[in-house]
């Protein structure tokens, strides 16, 4: 009997996972992203050099802007640090900023969107007008202002990105809740004596997890891009902590831009690969979680 149980119960997510596995591009995305995450976690083991130390060459001079070689396979930067090592450590920063910022924005967006959608009336009006206001801000300018006021650091970058990007989630969640709260099982659970909180968190939210997960994935890519732009502009993650964005910052120098392409090319490629693979995963998740879109 136990065995029959195992075979027969195909939860929604088990079915979605099966559909996801059929999507080659998304699987590649997962593979690439997992390797990036692994390299970020095990950075101290993988990185050939200390990302904060300038290396000296055999003549005892700082080995600055050296071209790719067997010792430094992506060369060294303008103060003589190993680019490959910095790239690996920067992955830590960029990925964690992406994840933390998105967690913040998803939590805020989901909570506010749920309240707005579920309670409607003035709660809805207040929250959605708040969303309109936040959307109206020129985001980059706002972020620059806040992160300057709060002293730029990796944590302010996370918080600031989280605080400005929850509006899409809030709108999405509100819309989904408006749809789901009309289902009869909501009324039925109320008729069986469930509290509002229980209805929202136990009955409604699990039913709209799919769009939220997709949203979170795609937003992670977005957050990584914003972090890169901020750091590139010098208001995000600060030197000497490496991030892909502030590594790109070196491309502002004409000599480096023109003659030392590996220094800006490698973080650029890292960003592109990361964002692309996350987006592929997001698309794959969307197709898997919403069978109606079906492309088979």
């Amino acid at each position: 009997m136990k065995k029959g149980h195992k075979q027969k119960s195909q939860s929604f997510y088990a079915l979605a996972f099966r559909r996801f596995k059929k999507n080659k591009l998304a699987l590649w995305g997962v593979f690439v992203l997992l390797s990036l995450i692994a390299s970020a976690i095990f950075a101290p083991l993988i990185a050939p050099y200390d990302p904060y130390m300038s290396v000296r060459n055999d003549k005892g001079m700082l080995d600055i802007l050296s071209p790719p070689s067997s010792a430094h396979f992506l060369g060294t930067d303008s103060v003589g640090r190993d680019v490959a090592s910095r790239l690996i450590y920067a992955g830590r920063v960029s990925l964690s900023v992406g994840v933390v910022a998105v967690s913040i924005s998803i939590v805020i967006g989901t909570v506010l969107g749920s309240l707005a959608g579920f309670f409607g009336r003035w709660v809805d009006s207040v929250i959605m007008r708040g969303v309109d206001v936040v959307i109206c801000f020129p985001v980059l300018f706002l972020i620059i202002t806040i992160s300057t006021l709060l002293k730029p650091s990796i944590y302010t970058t996370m918080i600031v990105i989280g605080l400005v990007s929850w509006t899409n989630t809030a709108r999405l969640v509100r819309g989904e809740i408006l749809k789901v709260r009309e289902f009869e099982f909501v009324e039925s659970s109320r008729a069986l004596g469930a509290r509002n909180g229980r209805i929202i968190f136990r009955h409604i939210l699990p039913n709209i997890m799919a769009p939220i997960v997709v949203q979170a994935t795609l937003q992670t890519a977005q957050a990584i891009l914003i972090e890169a732009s901020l750091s590139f502009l010098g208001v995000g993650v600060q030197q000497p902590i490496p991030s892909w964005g502030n590594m790109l910052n070196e491309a502002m120098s004409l000599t480096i831009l023109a003659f030392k392409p590996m220094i800006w090319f490698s973080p650029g490629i890292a960003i592109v690969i990361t964002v692309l693979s996350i987006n592929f995963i997001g698309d794959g998740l969307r197709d898997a979680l919403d069978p109606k879109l079906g492309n088979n």
Partner: protein
Amino acid sequence: MREPVLEVKGLETVFKTEEGSVPAVNGLDFSLYEGETLGIVGESGCGKSVAALSIMGLIPSPPGRVAAGQIMYRGEDLLGFSEERMRRIRGNQISMIFQEPMTALNPVYTVGNQIEETFRQHRNMSKQEAFQKSVQMLELVGIPLPEQRAGEYPHQLSGGMRQRVMIAMALACRPDVLIADEPTTALDVTIQAQILNLMKDLKKQFGTTIMLITHDLGVVAETAANVIVMYAGEAVEYAGVEDLFNAPRHPYTEGLLGSIPKIDESCEMLTTIEGVVPSLMDMPEGCRFHPRCHYKKELCTQKAPPLVESGASRVKCFKYTDQWPHRNRRTISP
């Protein structure tokens, strides 16, 4: 004289719309005695479901509001209860099952899980205990292999099975009163009979009082002891089920019974009640049924008829009052 479990007095539920307040239920009175099955019949939009939701305190507000009346549950007025107190009553003392077994179960949880929830909410049970109780409930509502079924999701069950699960959820805490809002409408006929039998069995077993809302007179004949016929937000006839079918008093009841096709007669056209239910926004003066009534007299268009006793039934129609002209020549059978 037994005390009624639930007594509804002068219930009036209105909905606010752009064009003003609409009374969806207008002065409904009835008593529900312990162990009784009361049928409430009427066509769509006559206020049956709104009456049920009013009792549960689940009228969407706004736009809805219980404007007047009392809902006495064991001597206390539910309308005066706080939301928290009401919540503890729902599913525990008064439970409700819904029409659509397809959508009334949450698709992301196993059915066992959903029954467990009722226990955990009202009985503070441990997970283990709640699970065992749920399996028992599933067994009780006649689901084969209950232990295995408990681990399945709603989409894996048929409509009839789901309705059984709904009944299991509603009866989990052994409520005094079960309100069944068209429990068999979405099911096919053989399954309907099974579900009705199940409800009858469980009622016998637990002594649950049932308020059965339906538009199907067959269902009423099968299960109910007493019947209320509703028309346009009002109860127009209260009768025992035998009286209702043998000697319908109100012209609307007559019409309803007349519109059931007979199995032993062939006919070209089905009999219907002429006209349509008036819009709640625009109720006719006098008796609400008069524009569609065969017996209509001058009188009916002027005043609302009182509720009068006629035999064992009570009916809202001038035909049974002294004011009716030619009272001697009244005919009762349809």
